[in-house]
Every structure is written in C-alpha cells, then in structure tokens.
C-alpha cells in the first residue's frame, strides 16, 4: 500500500497542473463548432434543395486559388455530415508547414463562404495549448508522457480507494467533519465514479499524441508500397482534373463518401497521385478511412486498400477522446464529466497542500 500511496502522490503531483490545463482547454474544444458559430467563423451553406447540382471540383479549386494567388492545393476536405462545403487548404509547396490558408467553398454555387483561420484566434490558442503547448512534436510527446502519468495516478488512486472506503458506505461524504475530510470523501467519490471515463479519455489522448508517429509508419510502409510503381518517374508539370480523380474514386468505392483529398506531393499521396480518403456511412465506418490513389494525370485508380489495424484503431479511438459521436447531449455530458474531473484534480491538489502544510507545522513545533 505504501508503494501505491507513493505512486499516486508523485504521478499526480507531476501531471496535475498539465492535466488541469488540458481539462480547461478541452472544455471549449468540445464545443468548437458551437463556438465557431458564435464567433462567426463557421461556414454556413445557404439552404438549397438537397439534390442541388454540385459545381465541378476543378471550379472549387479555381475559386480557392484565385483567393490566394501563388499558392497551390494541399488538401480539400468535407465534414462527415455535410457535403455542401469544401474546405480547401492552400500552401506554397505541398509539404509546407507554415503559411497555410484555408477557404471554405460552397459545393453547389462555388462561392466562398468563409476563410477559416488556421493560425490565430481563440480556438487556435485553445487547440495549441491542448495539443502541443505551441511546441510542435516535442510538446505533443511531452503531453503524452504527462497523460501516461495520469493513467498511473488513476490506477494507483483506484487501488487506494479500498483502504479509504473500508468503513464507509459508497457515496458517503462526511460533511460534518473538517473540510479536509469532506474534500477527501468528494475526491474519492468523484474519482471512482468518473474513473473509467477519465481513463478512456486519458488513454485515447495519449494514443493521439503518438498519432503522427503512427501515420509516419503507415506512410513509410503501406503508402510507400502503394505508390512504388511510380518511383523515379519525372515530376508532373501540371495536374489533371480533380473532379475526374474524385469521380474515379467514388466509382471505385460507391458506398463511401470523400473525407479528404491530399494533393500530389503531400505526405498522404505521391508526387503523381491524388490521395483520396473515403469514409463509410455507419456509426463505426464513418470514423474509418479507405485510401484510394488516383493517377493525377490520367484519373485512373491505381490502388486502394484497407488501412492497417493500428491506423484504424487510432481513428476509432479519436471520438472516444473528443466525445463528438453522440450529438449535443453527449457533448454536454462530456463537458460535465470534464468539470467533475477538474474537481477531482483540484481537490487532490488541495488535499496534498493541506497534508503538506500540516506536516510542515508538525515539524516546526
């Protein structure tokens, strides 16, 4: 038991402030669409008949590129539940990491709806603090390590629940005793009730911090195999029709919808292919992706495969972190659980400070 106490104390102490930051910044991220509405940054597709004809994707690209002359297409994506808007990301080169621009284009009228800001604004700050502390991959891996400590602290905390509760009924909070006892009981109650949820959200968060590495592994293996026949070919001087490429991908996977298109030269395609990533339409398959590689000149599908298990596992784990898979009620419950875990973190810190101060006072006496 002494070991568990030590583990709980130190794993918690090291990660608590970072976990507080993650819980606090995660709160607005749960509602990023709703906050986007309030800030007026969300793309609003005007009402039209559901079967209103779509403009050609080549036209969509023309409109987006005209907004940022000199930049080329990097990605074009659609929200899972809204095929009326194309989000086009433009960059100086296909592998640029800075100075990216995004334009939201109405898929039916070809009009620009809004220009989402990728590198400033309130949500960008919340997102960066939550994901990498503005410190790129090292920041992300650091938060991943803090997440691992959280998991240690959750497991050791669950073990310590038993000795504390041996003489108490489930759910007892001894309010009549000192504030320390009351908050100890609350810490134990809220901690044990939210334990599994907190563990799953923490664990999937840790998985996400490793996402870049997993995706790189996939790029170096499956994707590299899929584009191998084109190795050594001269670079393209001009791209073929995106509309034709996407039509070919839709014909190859008729039961699926486009999630995003990676333009030739990005890390999700090859210098000679459009990488077209499709998703299914059931609760589960809408979270999974299937890459369809289309020759960027001839618009022929050259390869399509299921993603390997580790990539699929990563994709499936993401909603379990975001809480974005059960509509508005689930978002609200996610936020409430988040607030409860904040109380667990703060009360844990408070209990440690009280004990620490009591100990120091005893020593001084």
């Amino acid at each position, binding site marked *: 038991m*002494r070991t568990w106490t030590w583990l709980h104390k130190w794993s918690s102490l090291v990660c608590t402030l970072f976990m507080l930051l993650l819980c606090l910044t995660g709160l607005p991220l749960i509602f990023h669409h709703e906050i986007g509405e309030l800030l007026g940054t969300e793309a609003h597709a005007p009402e039209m008949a559901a079967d209103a004809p779509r403009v050609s994707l080549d036209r969509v690209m023309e409109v987006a590129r005209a907004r940022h002359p000199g930049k080329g297409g990097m990605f074009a994506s659609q929200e899972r539940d809204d095929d009326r808007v194309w989000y086009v990301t433009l960059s100086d080169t296909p592998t640029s990491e800075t100075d990216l621009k995004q334009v939201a284009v109405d898929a039916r009228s070809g009009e620009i709806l809004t220009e989402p800001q990728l590198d400033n604004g309130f949500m960008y700050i919340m997102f960066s603090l939550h994901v990498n502390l503005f410190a790129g991959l090292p920041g992300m891996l650091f938060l991943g390590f803090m997440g691992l400590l959280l998991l240690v602290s959750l497991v050791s905390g669950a073990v310590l629940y038993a*000795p504390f509760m041996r003489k108490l009924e489930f759910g007892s909070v001894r309010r009549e005793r000192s504030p320390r006892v009351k908050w100890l009981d609350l810490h134990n109650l809220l901690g044990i*009730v939210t334990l599994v949820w907190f563990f799953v959200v923490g664990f999937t968060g840790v998985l996400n911090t490793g996402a870049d590495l997993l995706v790189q592994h996939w790029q170096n293996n499956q994707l590299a195999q899929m584009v191998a026949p084109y190795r050594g070919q001269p670079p393209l001087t001009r791209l073929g029709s995106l509309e034709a490429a996407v039509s070919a991908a839709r014909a190859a996977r008729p039961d699926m919808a486009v999630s995003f298109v990676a333009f030739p030269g990005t890390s999700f395609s090859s210098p000679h292919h459009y990488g077209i990533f499709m998703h299914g339409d059931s609760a589960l398959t809408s979270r999974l992706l299937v890459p369809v590689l289309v020759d960027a000149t001839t618009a022929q599908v050259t390869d399509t495969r299921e993603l390997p298990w580790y990539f699929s596992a990563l994709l499936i784990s993401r909603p379990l972190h975001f809480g974005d*898979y059960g509509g508005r009620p689930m978002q609200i419950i996610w936020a409430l*659980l988040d607030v409860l875990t904040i109380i667990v973190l703060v009360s844990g810190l408070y209990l440690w400070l009280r004990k620490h101060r009591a100990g120091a006072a005893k020593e001084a006496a």
Partner: protein
Amino acid sequence: MSARRPLPHHGGRAHRHGRAHRHRPLWRWPVRLGVVTLVGLLSALLADGFWDVVSWLALGALVAVCVFFGWLRRG
C-alpha cells in the same frame, strides 16, 4: 495509511474466497458504474439512433450519481 490485512492466511483458496467476500460490497458500485461507463462509451460508437440514447442515459447516470452523493444528499 496502512491497509489492514484482510483475513489471516488459510491457504490459497480459502484466502481468496475470504478476500473476495470482504471486497464485494466495497467494489460493488464502482464496478457497476465502470460497466455502465463502458456501455455508454461504446453504444454510440458502434451504432446510431437508439444507441445514442443509451449512451446519454449511461454517461448521464455517472454525472447524476456524482451530483446526488456529492452535493444533493444531506445528512
């Protein structure tokens, strides 16, 4: 704090038995709530419609338990 040893040793099986018995009431609700959490997390992930509602009820129950025991129940 130190955990009191459960029961004196009676050898393998008896010991395990005694321990499990002692722990059942203590862990009954945490285990039930853990199962409720998993049902809530998975049902909306694997299916839509009715199963979203199952998720809301299951995960909402966690919040309700916290609020009830933590703040509403007095004395």
